[in-house]
């Protein structure tokens, strides 16, 4: 079977890219080894965080160009999110009611002030709040919170709903969605990609395509290997916790400038607590296994302690579940999005804050694929920045 494009991976990156490619009129098949949305895309915190990350703040001077690009991209993403429920014709439990980045210590405050100055200079809408203003806006926060940076666009969306909505739309637009199909081989043959996959039944299938999109998430490196490529994406395990429902009292996305924390309350009343605490990846014979990472109780307790310190009202709430997911990170923490020059027709969409930016990355990537150029440059994310890793790959 021949397609214009084969997309490998049924997470947000894969489903959204398949959807935009199908919308642009390409014939598309998406191959997923398990079920749609069962990877990081269905297990993440669902935070829409637009404030700058640490990395960018710490090296603001050296990264001035990148900063500018990033803030401009953030603006594109914000606009994209505002229209996404209409675009996908699905309710997604989207809330963009603002987010607070908290500070408790003098050091935190210093960092926050620096951050605010950089962001404002770049044109990102943020307001620095002192203790009293923070209390007034968010009375559920502990008096220990001495300042906060408020960004009105931040919020959350339900990861349960977003990726399936893209998958449904892709299917409506004619894309074929093949689940329980693990891709085992991708080879360049003439001017086409030849892809083999093993179906759950054991049957082996083969497809050809002009374009191949590697959207295998934390496993993008493994998939890259099948095309004789080093794509530096490394799996990490992360932890999330959810409490029982309670009356709405947390009205923002809460993050912390000096500690690992993300917290929000969804419309149904559950409080979600995470923020980058690690979970142990399963391994065997020195290889990472695709299974779910193990909860690390010390990390779990530290995560909840951090949350409790800034929001004392959560103490009596019962934790329903702690879960873990595996996401992919790159050596420079920027995503890998774009074409791989040495492998014509090979594209990658992996890494980064792939929920907040996933829809936008996918749309821009599909523009790059179908028109040769994206409406907002993807240059900083080009996989070619790691071309040196493939220099000797023959």
């Amino acid at each position: 079977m021949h397609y214009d494009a084969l997309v490998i991976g049924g997470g947000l990156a894969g489903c959204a890219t398949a959807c935009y490619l199908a919308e642009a009129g390409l014939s598309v098949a998406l191959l997923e080894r398990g079920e749609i949305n069962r990877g990081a895309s269905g297990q993440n915190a669902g935070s829409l965080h637009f404030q700058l990350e640490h990395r960018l703040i710490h090296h603001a001077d050296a990264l001035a160009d990148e900063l500018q690009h990033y803030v401009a991209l953030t603006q594109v993403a914000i606009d994209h999110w505002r229209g996404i429920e209409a675009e996908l014709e699905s309710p997604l439990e989207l809330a963009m009611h603002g987010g607070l980045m908290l500070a408790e210590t003098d050091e935190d405050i210093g960092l926050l002030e620096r951050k605010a100055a950089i962001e404002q200079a770049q044109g990102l809408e943020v307001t620095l709040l002192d203790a009293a203003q923070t209390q007034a806006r968010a009375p559920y926060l502990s008096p220990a919170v001495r300042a906060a940076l408020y960004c009105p666009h931040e919020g959350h969306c339900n990861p349960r709903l977003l990726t399936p909505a893209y998958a449904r739309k892709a299917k409506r637009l004619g894309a074929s969605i093949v689940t329980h199909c693990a891709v085992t081989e991708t080879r360049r043959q003439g001017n086409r990609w030849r892809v083999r996959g093993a179906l759950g039944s054991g049957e082996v299938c083969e497809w050809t395509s002009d374009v191949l999109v590697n959207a295998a998430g934390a496993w993008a490196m493994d998939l890259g290997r099948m095309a004789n490529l080093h794509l530096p994406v490394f799996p990490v395990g992360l932890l999330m916790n959810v409490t029982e429902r309670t009356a709405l009292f947390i009205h923002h996305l809460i993050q912390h400038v000096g500690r690992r924390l993300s917290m929000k309350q969804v419309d149904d009343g559950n409080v979600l607590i995470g923020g980058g605490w690690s979970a142990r990846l399963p391994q065997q014979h020195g290889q990472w296994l695709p299974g779910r990472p193990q909860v690390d109780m010390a990390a779990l307790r530290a995560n909840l302690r951090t949350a409790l310190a800034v929001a004392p009202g959560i103490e009596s709430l019962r934790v329903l579940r702690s879960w873990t997911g595996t996401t992919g990170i790159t050596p420079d923490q920027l995503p890998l999005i774009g074409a791989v020059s040495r492998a014509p027709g090979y594209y990658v969409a992996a890494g980064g804050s792939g929920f907040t930016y996933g829809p936008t990355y996918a749309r821009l990537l599909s523009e790059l694929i179908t028109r040769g150029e994206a409406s907002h440059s993807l240059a900083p994310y080009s996989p070619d920045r790691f071309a040196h890793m493939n220099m000797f790959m023959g």
Partner: protein
Amino acid sequence: MRTDLAIVGAGPAGMAAARIAASHGLAVTVIDEQARAGGQILRQPPQAFRVDRWLTDRIYSPQQQLLRQSTELTNVRWLQATTVLGADLVAEGVRLQLNGAGGTCELTADRLLIATGCHDMPVSFPGSTLPGVMATGGIQAFIKSQQIVPGERFLFSGSHPLQLIVADQVLQAGGDVAAVLFSQPPSVIGQALRHSPALLPHPGKILYFSRACARLLRRGVPVRFGQVASCARGDGRLQSVEITASKTLQNGAPSRPVDSIDCDRLGIGFGFLANSQLASQLGASGHWSDTAGGWVAEVDAWMRSSLPGVYVAGETTGIGGADVAQREGELAGLAAALDAGVLPVDAANNQARPTRRALRSLYRFADLLSRLSHPGADLLRGLMTPDSTLCKCEEVSVGDVTTALKNNPFATDINALKLLSRCGMGLCQGRYCQYQLRSLLAEHRGEAVFQSRFPIKPVSIGELVSGTSDQIH
């Protein structure tokens, strides 16, 4: 804290294992979330409250004897009113997360026995969440532990013979029973009799059961076959129950009530499901059984699971009743001693021999019971109207799930469906909807069961952070 052998569950399986392992010198810790030992079969009254004639029937005497023996053991530590929230394999063995009176803490054990028992199989039908509709086993637990009848006029609907025993216990405790409905056709009695070789070695059970039936008949309680409660009605609480012929529902036809009975309690008794969350969270191998408890752990002849140092016994390996549970517990206790190197293999084999002999015939009996007492997938599916509540915690109806399936035809595994529909995402972690949710999936291609997560039972953030973790990473 550490221990040689941690046992989760102080029912017949856990108590029997504790007795044997302790007798071979292992330091044993038994953890159970109930205030007192005994498990489901001996649901004990609270210590403060004296019940004169607590479970006097001879049928309970083996377990009562076991309970007496167990509580006299010296090198056994009993952590009652303590819930196991989760477990993981560590270099030293198994680490358990506990939640008891003093908050949360960790217990590291060389070995772990999971003997967590079972719970009543929940069934969805219109009105199944109305106050007054109860699990039959739940009614029994109430009577056993309190000697109080939780209602006035009872109707029982189901497929499990336990219905007759509970109906009899209700009568004896002073309640009124309107009828007992069995979804199976009357020919089920003939089928049972045809298998009498499997029944004969268990005269005590048969006698107990026959006496209960005789008492019901004497009191004029109608026992009807081929009928089922298809709708519970009432204004805020149960007032009447509609009854439909099983055949109608099995054929997928809409319910056509043949009768309606006024009552304030409806007992639902279609059998039991294994409490397998802990075993599945740890990653033990298991398989799905429609008739013997849903997802059950797989064990070898010594009740060893697929995981090193982890044993499973009792209902969690497949529903078999209290006597099977007790015998499996004995084997697990021997195996723990054997694997710990304190019991030579010959001695272990010798001691296991009578237990294995007893188990052979008990398994035959249990298999027969499981097969005959299962209502069949068609009947359960027939009861599930679109409006019926499937997931009580998240208020998801059968219709919500079938719509999600229709809109997302690429979802074929139960965890994907859970993520799409919220069914199973609530307080009980899906214990109450997993079995039925599975029946809505036309084909199963992925995982067979919900991924069981920490904590197995909800625990407050305050309790969690007050605890400590030995290992900091």
